[in-house]
């Protein structure tokens, strides 16, 4: 297999599966269940994960792969994110297989959009060319805009979709403007040549402006404050499995881009962007946690919690290069496991129509659904960061990285915020395990948990638990993931 094909293998598998799903969709007669298409999509995401594993074997044997005139760089860093995205997509697809209450006619489009979105996210993580990053960002964004409004006919769904689309396009414009300015300052849009160009540039002001623009664009995508305003509304209106997907996988991809761009592309400007990152981190942690305190809708509460978690993740960026990459990778993985898990539980509990929404609706849930309540409780504890859950080690690595690099006050703010966060997570947990009131969950019909959803739930729970008990396995992987600077590539940009 040629290097070019090998470097694109997971994306190719996903694209072909997505096209197959679209081609087969009209063949299935109207009114029939679309589940076979779902299984096809699941098979595709599984195969793309295997393809990423295969890439890992090749990279272990031969070292970093570059392809397509150094647009794509396959190293342990990008493979880690490929695996993470494939896993999140797989679990989401398993969880949404039985999500649609009646066999709706167009579920095939849902599966195809999820697959194509994953293609964009994967391209974002493996690309070292900002134009390629932009195309990947657009693919993943457009598919999530549509998925957010998939519960058609509901006002919140339309609000969610249109709000996400308008603000998202605005943010993408900032990113693109940043790319244009960095091209103006360094004469290139590739990570390696940007670093080389910054060393000799005579217009550092323009480059600083460019970095700020890119930070705004990607800050929106990861819902970091003060670019977080869309998050609660969008998460409230979007279908629960989709929220699980879009609060983790695209964010992981955006963080991967940030890590590559900041540490490999603009290390010269470290002194400038570190300040911006600190502001974003503190604002996200504080606004996210304080905002969550007064929420009644569970999805809105988890939306504010995801803003806060974006803040914790940004704290990782203040460490040294290796600590930052290891901390951020570990945190994205644990956050993906526990957040996808929490939203899967929500989707299983309230179904497509989302009859139970507010914290009051969850009162006394433990009596009716003990298993589901225990799972949700476990994910909430992990989101708090209780020991023996993945969330604990995630926070531990992030904050220790910041402290080692001398950002003591950032660590203190982070820990104080973790304390504040306990309140709202425990408020939900207390509601679940308290005596049911007359109008609460007792009257909600029990939805049977089907086998694929059970597998998905078990996988996320095991991942969260496994990362809490045996974090070493992943730590070894992510510590290797520090991407090498592409300076060697920069010298020969057209080596093939």
């Amino acid at each position: 297999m040629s290097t070019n094909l090998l470097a694109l293998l997971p994306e190719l598998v996903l694209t072909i599966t997505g096209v197959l799903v679209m081609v087969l969709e009209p063949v299935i007669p109207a009114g029939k269940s679309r589940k076979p298409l779902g299984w096809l999509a699941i098979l595709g995401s599984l195969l793309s994960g295997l393809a990423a594993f295969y890439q890992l074997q090749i990279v272990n044997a031969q070292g970093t792969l570059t392809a397509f005139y150094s647009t794509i760089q396959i190293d342990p860093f990008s493979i880690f994110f490929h695996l993470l995205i494939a896993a999140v997509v797989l679990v989401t697809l398993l969880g949404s297989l039985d999500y649609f209450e009646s066999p709706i006619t167009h579920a095939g489009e849902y599966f195809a959009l999820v697959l194509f979105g994953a293609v964009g996210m994967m391209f974002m993580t493996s690309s070292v060319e900002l134009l390629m990053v932009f195309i990947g960002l657009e693919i993943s964004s457009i598919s999530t805009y549509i998925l957010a409004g998939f519960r058609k006919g509901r006002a919140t769904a339309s609000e969610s979709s249109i709000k996400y689309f308008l603000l998202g396009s605005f943010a993408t414009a900032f990113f693109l403007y940043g790319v244009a300015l960095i091209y103006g300052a360094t004469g290139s849009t590739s990570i390696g040549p940007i670093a080389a160009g910054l060393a000799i540039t005579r217009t550092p002001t323009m480059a600083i402006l460019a970095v700020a623009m890119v930070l705004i664009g990607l800050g929106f995508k990861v819902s970091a404050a003060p670019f977080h305003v869309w998050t609660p509304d969008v998460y409230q209106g979007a279908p629960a499995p989709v929220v699980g997907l879009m609060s983790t996988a695209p964010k992981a991809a955006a963080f991967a881009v940030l890590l590559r761009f900041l540490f490999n592309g603009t290390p010269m400007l470290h002194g400038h962007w570190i300040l911006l990152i600190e502001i974003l981190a503190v604002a996200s942690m504080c606004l996210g946690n304080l905002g969550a305190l007064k929420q009644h809708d569970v999805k809105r509460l988890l939306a504010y919690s995801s803003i806060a978690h974006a803040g914790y993740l940004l704290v990782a960026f203040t460490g040294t290069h290796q600590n930052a990459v290891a901390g951020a990778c570990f945190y994205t993985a644990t956050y993906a496991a526990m957040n996808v898990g929490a939203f899967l539980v929500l989707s299983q509990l309230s179904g497509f129509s989302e009859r139970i929404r507010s914290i009051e609706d969850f009162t006394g849930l433990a009596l009716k659904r003990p298993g589901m309540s225990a799972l949700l409780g476990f994910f909430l504890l992990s989101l708090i960061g209780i020991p023996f859950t993945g969330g604990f080690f995630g926070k531990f690595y992030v904050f220790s990285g910041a402290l080692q690099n001398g950002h003591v006050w950032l660590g203190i703010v982070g820990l104080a915020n973790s304390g504040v966060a306990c309140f709202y997570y425990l408020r939900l947990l207390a509601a679940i395990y308290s005596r049911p009131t007359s109008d609460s969950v007792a009257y909600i019909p029990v939805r049977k948990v089907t086998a694929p959803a059970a597998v998905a739930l078990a996988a996320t729970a095991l991942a969260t638990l496994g990362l809490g008990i045996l974090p070493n396995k992943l730590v070894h992987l992510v510590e290797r993931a520090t991407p090498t600077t592409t300076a060697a590539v920069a010298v020969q940009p057209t080596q093939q």
Partner: protein
Amino acid sequence: MQIALFTIFGLLAVIAALNMLLQRHPINSALSLVVVMMSLAVLYWSLGAEFLAAAQIIVYAGAVMVLFVFVVMLLNAGEEQRTKGSKIASIAGFPGAAAIFCLLTFIFLKNRAALGNTQLSGLYNGAESNLTRIAHALFTNLLLPFEVTSVLVLVAILGAVVLARKEL
């Protein structure tokens, strides 16, 4: 000449963009957008990106805008809404357009010597033309983004289909 052209068309683009946002009638907004696209095309051309300027006019001012206007007209297929148009436009419209036309003619005639270098393909003065360089970039360094754009377009089509449906 550069600065004069930049000022005129930059201002025109900004004003037209504002007008596009402020107009209440969709057709007026769409026509203002045409002015924005045209002014941008002139700015591209004055920066030496002749191909981009031509593409801007053909694709945006031509194809995309025609589509816009068609959609607006088809959606408002019922009772046609009549607007009187603004007073300023009816009073100052033609004199203003004539003034800008005269000013531009003056600038172009004054700088006649500098004109005539615009070329879309082939070599001139021994250097590669714009088009050759764009083609070179698209099929070497930026081959992958160029190809993956097809997935982007596919997702956009799929999204349009999902959004346009009535039932789920």
